[in-house]
């Protein structure tokens, strides 16, 4: 018993309060040790990213006339796109992603969408996260069901995933235990109070489980930020929110026995008015995202070669600029898969074109790839989730969305 208690120490939790009984409300060690296993970070962009701005199809003959002043020029022009191939580029704010592309560590998907075809953010995000073809029908998320499948298959037990947030988003909710941790610092809380709360919660399963998770997560964050043998260096305050979130994810994943899966959320992509082009509101958001991804790689350090980072949004935006120099809710968008584990340097797009007749409902980029085909491939090739479990429990009714092949380095 002694040993497991010390493993539960939240910083100096309990060490100064030997007189207090340690409650049974704090169960066994949550994290087992892992070796060089795969790491996965899922970044959810809430609000619907304009894929035609993030990954401009500069060579499409209808692009500039539809997207007008929001369009990104061809590579080589002033403020032009960063070249990917002869059709597509990256928004000039995405310098880090472009470096990864050149290093063969980024796959860019275009004309992708979840199975959702209406235009509500909230239902769209539900479908993106619940892994079904419809917004309601389950209270858990596909990433959690994938983790549950791994554990049923004899994988590591305990919390393998973390949501970098105070609360757990739908994609990670479900039977497999997960933790949440926000980058906001929680200074030391009086240890004696925590110990007494553990007692007070002993008859309430829900509260006692949450408290023990929180205590354990704090410890991981401490270790990751301050590995054994290294002096604690004060971190500068995070200059931007999503950057701080990305750093926190990396810190936890780097810690011994830390989670292999992390979910990050970034909002502010709902650009109905004054979206801007190569500069402006969306450009700034994209630059923040790019910087956060760079920070993630830097902080992951030696884990980067075994990491895949998946960046997705609930749907795209209208192909044409609206009346207020923005874009309204659409359908097809782009997605990114980056990381040292990724077989990248490629754009995967069955491009439907932006001709009037090619657009969905006369307005949106028509999706030609189901995002679940990407999710399945990453979960199977990278996380080693059984293909049968993926086709049944994780993504029910997804026969139409066959997994892509060869996204991850062998």
């Amino acid at each position, binding site marked *: 018993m002694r040993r497991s208690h010390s493993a539960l120490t939240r910083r100096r939790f309990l060490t100064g309060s030997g007189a207090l009984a340690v409650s049974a409300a704090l169960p066994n060690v949550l994290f087992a040790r892992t070796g060089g296993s795969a790491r996965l970070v899922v970044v959810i962009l809430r609000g619907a990213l304009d894929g035609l701005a993030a990954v401009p199809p500069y060579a499409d003959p209808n692009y500039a006339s539809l997207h007008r002043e929001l369009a990104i020029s061809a590579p080589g022009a002033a403020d032009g796109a960063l070249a990917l191939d002869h059709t597509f580029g990256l928004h000039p704010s995405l310098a880090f992603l472009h470096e990864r592309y050149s290093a063969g560590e980024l796959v860019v998907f275009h004309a992708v969408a979840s199975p959702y075809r209406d235009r*509500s953010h909230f239902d769209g995000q539900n479908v993106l996260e619940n892994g079904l073809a419809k917004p309601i029908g389950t209270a858990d998320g596909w990433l959690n069901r994938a983790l549950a499948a791994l554990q049923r298959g004899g994988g590591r037990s305990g919390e393998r995933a973390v949501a970098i947030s105070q609360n757990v988003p739908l994609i990670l909710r479900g039977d497999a235990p997960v933790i949440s941790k926000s980058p*906001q610092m929680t200074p030391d809380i009086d240890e004696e109070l925590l110990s007494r709360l553990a007692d007070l919660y002993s008859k309430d399963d829900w509260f006692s489980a949450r408290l023990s998770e929180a205590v354990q997560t704090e410890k991981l964050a401490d270790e990751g930020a301050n590995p054994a043998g290294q002096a604690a260096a004060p971190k500068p305050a995070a200059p931007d929110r999503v950057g701080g979130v990305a750093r926190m994810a990396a810190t936890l994943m780097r810690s011994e026995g830390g989670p292999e899966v992390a979910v990050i959320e970034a909002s502010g992509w709902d650009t109905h008015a004054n979206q801007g082009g190569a500069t402006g509101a969306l450009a700034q958001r994209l630059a923040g995202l790019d910087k956060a991804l760079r920070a993630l790689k830097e902080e992951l350090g030696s884990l980067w070669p075994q990491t895949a980072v998946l960046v997705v949004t609930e749907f795209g935006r209208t192909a044409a600029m609206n009346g207020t120099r923005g874009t309204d809710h659409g359908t097809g968008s782009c997605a990114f898969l980056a990381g040292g584990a990724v077989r990248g340097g490629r754009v995967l797009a069955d491009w439907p074109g932006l001709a009037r007749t090619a657009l969905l409902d006369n307005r949106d980029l028509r999706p030609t790839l189901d995002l679940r085909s990407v999710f399945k491939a990453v979960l199977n090739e990278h996380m080693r989730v059984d293909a049968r479990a993926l086709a049944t429990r994780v993504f029910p009714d997804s026969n139409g969305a066959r997994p892509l092949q060869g996204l991850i380095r062998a």
Partner: protein
Amino acid sequence: MQTEIAVLRFGLGARPGELAAAAGDPRAWLMAQVRAAVPLAGNTPLAPSDQIFIELLAARDEREQMKAGVAAGAAGEAAAAPVFNPVREAYLPHYRAQVLARAQSAALTARPFAERLVHFWSNHFAVSADKGAVFGVAGTLENEAIRPHVNGRFIDLLMAVEQHPAMIAFLDNQYSVGKDSELASLAARRGARARAALPDKPAREFGINENLAREILELHTLGVNGGYSQSDVTSFAQIITGWSIGGGKGRLAGGTPGRFCFRENLHEPGAKSFLGKTYHEDGLRQGEAVLEDLAGHPATARFIATKLVRHFVADDAPPAAVERLARAFHKSGGDLPTVYAALIASPEAWDADARKFKTPEDFVFSTFRALDMSPRQPEEVLRSFELLGQRQFTPGSPAGWPDTSKSWDGSDALMHRVLWASRVAGRYTLATDPVDLASSSLGGYARPETVTALRRAASSSQAVALLLMSPEFQRR
């Protein structure tokens, strides 16, 4: 437990003596609160939205001048200077005052059920202060559009909200322009002349913005499964072109500054079809007629009923209760006190075991009430909600804050609550026995083990922290 349920679940948590006051007839205690408007309790002075918008316009001018100055001056020097945003500076004191006033009202009100309903509707019709253009007016929508109508008819509430300048600005409708409007036609003719002179200059095109129309349908009235299509969204957006804010510049000149105004010259003319019905051209009235039909639509009744039941009964709204409220809504023509009466008459709402996990707002406001304190400085409130993850008036999306436990019950969130509770307790001077405090704030919900823990606490501040973090205080 009927009294505790009335005060803790329907209300905002018990102030000292409140359980006793409600004990005689808890249902009558609730019903007495849902008549007439619900003004702010407390006395923090607040500026009205039109005045704040006028200050904003002046600040925008200043910002333009600054930009011009920077462009003219030495670039290096300007880049090193700290960023000063006149718009934010103009807005900040208003935002802070609104946050403080709201918290004081929640802490002090003698009509906590009505106040909770104000919060409910404010979240239903959410505007988010993280959009720069509405930062300083986000709180005015609650005070100016919701408080007067929370105990009236739904259509009056709906109309006041959709014609409030904060909502118009939040969902971008002031710039939405009909393609065949006077303004667009004029611009097209000018454009044609300009192109004759300067063939390379692109024509300025006007068009609609769907944002407000879509969210009225999806979030304010019918609900996402309410049976409308994309073409209904587009058509409704055309119908409400011209719904704008007075006192702008250029094409937005005219109208009473800072007030809702209908701009005929932006309005798409002609009859339009919406949900299978034709609405003839009637200027502002065309959109108002649609809102009236939406308010009377059965899908709206069901959607509102579901949200009310989710808020007051359980995350998974029991269908029988939803049905009862929807019927009351529909039969009364959207008379809100009739709907509230149906809620109070629902046995599902009085189940002593079915308790909801408190949101950070619930937790903070019920703490203020339990400890009989009211914040004096905006910082106290701002820092609290920053820490607990519910920055006031900033849900980040027009859908408002989520209203289910799963959205708030992360382990990290719990740790932040512990931290906040211990800080509040550390500053609080306990004047009574902590067991009495448990009794005045929780009544029969106080568990024996909590009472024991309070008796054994090492200090009075530890006792207060334990009480606030007890499972029974964390639920309502």
